[in-house]
C-alpha cells in the first residue's frame, strides 16, 4: 500500500489529511497525505526522492536540504502542507536529463568535496541556492552558507573549494546551464 493510498484519518467531520499540488524538479505532483507529514517523508516515501537524506530531524545538520521556490529549507522540519503550490527542487533535479552533471556536481567531483557522501545532496542544494543568490560569493559568504550544514568527513576545506569551483564553472557556459 502506498502512503497515498492509506485510509484518511479523521476527527468528527474534520479530515486529518491535506491535498497538495506542487512542482517537483519540473514535474507536477499531486498527493493527499496526513497533515503531520513532513516534506522529508513526502519526498522520500511518496515521490521516491531518496537523495533527500534524513538525519538530525531538527533542522540542524542540513542533510535534508531542498529548495522551495529557490529558498533552502530543511525538509525534516517543514510540513508538507507548506509546499502546496510551490516549486520544489531536490538533488535529483540538478543533472540534465541526459545525465550531464550540473556545475555544482562537477565541482564537487573535481575537488573531492565529499567522502561518505551522506551530506552531499544537502551541500549541493545549499550551493545551488547560494549561487543563485550570489553567483560570485567570496570565501566568507561561502563559509557562512555552508556552516548551515554538517559534514563529518571532509573537514569542510574541500567543500569550500568545491563551491568556489562551482561558481567558477557557473560563469562559463555549461551543458546544464546551472547555476545561472
Amino acid at each position: 500500500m502506498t502512503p497515498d493510498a492509506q485510509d484518511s484519518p479523521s476527527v468528527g467531520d474534520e479530515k486529518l489529511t491535506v491535498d497538495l499540488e506542487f512542482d517537483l524538479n519540473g514535474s507536477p505532483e499531486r498527493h493527499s497525505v496526513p497533515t503531520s507529514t513532513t516534506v522529508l517523508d513526502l519526498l522520500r516515501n511518496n515521490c521516491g526522492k531518496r537523495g533527500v537524506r534524513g538525519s538530525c530531524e531538527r533542522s540542524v545538520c542540513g542533510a535534508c536540504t531542498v529548495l522551495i521556490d529557490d529558498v533552502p529549507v530543511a525538509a525534516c522540519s517543514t510540513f508538507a502542507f507548506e509546499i502546496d503550490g510551490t516549486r520544489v527542487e531536490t538533488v535529483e533535479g540538478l543533472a540534465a536529463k541526459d545525465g550531464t552533471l550540473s556545475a555544482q556536481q562537477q565541482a564537487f567531483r573535481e575537488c573531492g568535496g565529499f567522502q561518505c557522501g551522506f551530506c552531499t545532496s544537502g551541500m549541493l542544494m545549499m550551493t545551488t541556492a547560494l549561487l543563485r543568490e550570489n553567483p560570485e560569493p567570496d570565501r566568507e559568504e561561502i563559509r557562512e552558507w555552508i556552516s548551515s550544514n554538517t559534514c563529518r568527513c571532509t573537514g569542510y576545506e574541500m567543500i569550500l573549494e568545491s563551491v568556489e569551483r562551482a561558481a567558477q564553472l557557473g560563469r562559463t557556459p555549461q551543458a546544464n546551464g546551472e547555476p545561472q
Partner: protein
Amino acid sequence: MRGQKLGAGLIAQNQSALPPFILYRPTSLPEAVDLNEQHPEAVMAAGCSDLVAQIREGYEPEVVISLQHVNELRSISHEDGVLSIGSMVTHHAGSTSPDIRAFMPALATAWGSIATVRIRYRGTLGGNLMARRFRYELPVILSALNGQMHFQASDVTTLPVSSLWDRDARSPGILTGVTVETGSLLWYGYERSMRPVSTVALAVRRQAGAGITVTAVCGSEYRQPFVLSHTAAATAISDLDPVAVGAVLASQLPDAAGDFTGTAEYRRHLVGVLSSRLLARAAGYQQK
C-alpha cells in the same frame, strides 16, 4: 515523539509517529482570528521549524492554524519613530529589510547573526518569540529594545517582549507583530560571542526629562533572559564609564541566573565584561 513521551525509551526515529492534526489555512487576519476564537486550543504555525521540533518532543496539538498565507503579518514599516515588524517576517527578511537597515542597522545585524542561513529563511519573528525557548535569541534582542508584542483577538492586547515568561503559555490572541520605539534610542548592540553561556543585548536611551538609561538583557541556554537597567545623570554616552556601568548592571543579575553550565557569579562576570565592551563601542560610534 509519542513513543518517547510514553516512556518507551530510546526508539528508532520514525516520522510516521508524528500525530496528525486538524489543519486550517486562513488567508486573512480576520479569518485567522475567527478560527482562533472557534478553537482556543489551537496552536499557530508560522515557519514551523520549532513546531515540528515540539511535536517530535511529544507535543500533540489537536488543531493547527497555519498563518503561512496571512500576508498582512509580513509587513515592516517605520512611522512616527516607531518600527513595526509583522510576526510572520522571517529572520532573513527582517535582517535584510531596507527599513530596518535604514533606521536600526544594529538590529538588522543582530537579527542576521542568529541561527543559520537556512533557518533564517524559514524561521519567523513570531515563531521565535512564541516558542518561548530560553535559548532563542529574539526575546533577548527585542527585550533590550523594550519591544512590545501586539496580540489580536476580539480585542488587541499589548505586552512587553520581556514579559514572555511572566504568564502561562496561552497567548491572549494571535501575535500580529512587535513594535520598537526608536525616537529616544541612542545606541544598540548585541554580543553573542560567549553564546550559549551568556549573551547580552544592550540599548541606550535618552530619558524624557534628563539622563540616559542603559538596558541590558542577559540570555543563556537554560535560563530565561534577565532584564538589567541603569539610569545615569549623563547627557551623552561618552559621559558613561563603561566598566562602572557594566559592574552596576552585572550586580543586578540574580542568583537564579546560575546553572550547571555557569554559576551566577561567572555570569555576572560575563555580563560585566560584555556590557562594558558594548558601552565602549557605543561611546566610540554613537550610532543606533
